[in-house]
C-alpha cells in the first residue's frame, strides 16, 4: 500500500515544491509507492485527519503530529541530503 508523505512549508508554493519533487523522484527510483501531499504548515492537522505516515517540513512545526517528522532543509541547501533521504526511505519502507 502506498505511503502518504505530507510535505509542508509556510506557503506550500516554494520550498515544499522542491522537497516534494525530490521525494517523489527518490521513491520512484527505490520502487516505493508514495502519495505526496503538499500543504502549508497550518493545514497539516486537517490533512493528518485523512491519515499519513510521515511529515517532511521546511518550516517549524509547533505541535506533535504523532507521526515521524523530518526536516527537509537538506533538499534546499544540499547539507546532509543523503542522510535525510535515508531517514525518509527508512520510514517509507516500514
Amino acid at each position: 500500500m502506498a505511503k502518504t508523505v505530507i510535505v509542508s512549508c509556510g506557503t506550500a508554493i516554494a520550498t515544499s515544491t522542491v522537497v516534494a519533487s525530490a521525494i517523489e523522484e527518490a521513491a520512484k527510483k527505490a520502487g516505493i509507492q508514495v502519495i505526496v501531499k503538499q500543504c502549508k504548515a497550518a493545514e497539516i492537522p486537517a490533512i493528518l485527519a485523512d491519515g499519513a505516515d510521515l511529515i517532511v517540513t521546511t518550516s517549524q512545526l509547533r505541535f506533535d503530529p504523532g507521526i515521524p517528522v523530518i526536516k527537509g532543509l537538506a533538499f534546499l541547501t544540499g547539507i546532509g541530503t543523503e542522510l535525510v533521504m535515508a531517514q525518509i526511505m527508512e520510514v517509507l519502507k516500514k
Partner: protein
Amino acid sequence: MPVLDFLKQEAICLQVDLGSSEEIIRLLGGKLHALGYVKDGFIEATLKREASMPTGLPLGGEYNAALPHVDIEFVNKSALALATLTHPVVFKNMVDDSEEVPVRMVIMLALDKPKSQIEMLKEISQILKRPETVRALVAAQTAQEVVTILADMAAPPVNSS
C-alpha cells in the same frame, strides 16, 4: 536557465548596506511592486509571514541566504528579486525561529501559482547548494555579472552532501 527568465534585472540590488530583514524585504518588494509583478499589500504580507514563518537558510559555505515570499494572492506574475549585502543581516532560521542566521544573499520569490515554476525553484536550490556560486553572487558588482554567473551554472553538483 529558468531562474534568468524570472529574475528581473531592475530587481537586482547588489552590495546594499541595510540593517534589517525588514529593510531588505521593503527594498526588493518595492522593486517588484514598481515593476507591476506584485500587488499592493505584498510587502506587508511578506513581512508578516517572515515574522511568523521565517525564511533564513543556513548554507554549507561562508554565506547564508534567505528566501522571503508570500501567498500567491499577492502576486500578479511570477518574478524573482535579488539582493546581496555588504554586511550580514539577521533572518530567523526557517525550521527554528530561535536561531539567527546572518544572511548575505536574499532571493525574493514572487510566485503566481502553486506547484508552478518547479524548474526555477529547483534551480534556486542548485544555486544554494553551491558555495562557490553563492560566493560569486555575493561578490558580484553588476547585474550583468549575476546573469553571467547564473548562465554559467552548468550541470547539477555531483554530490555536495
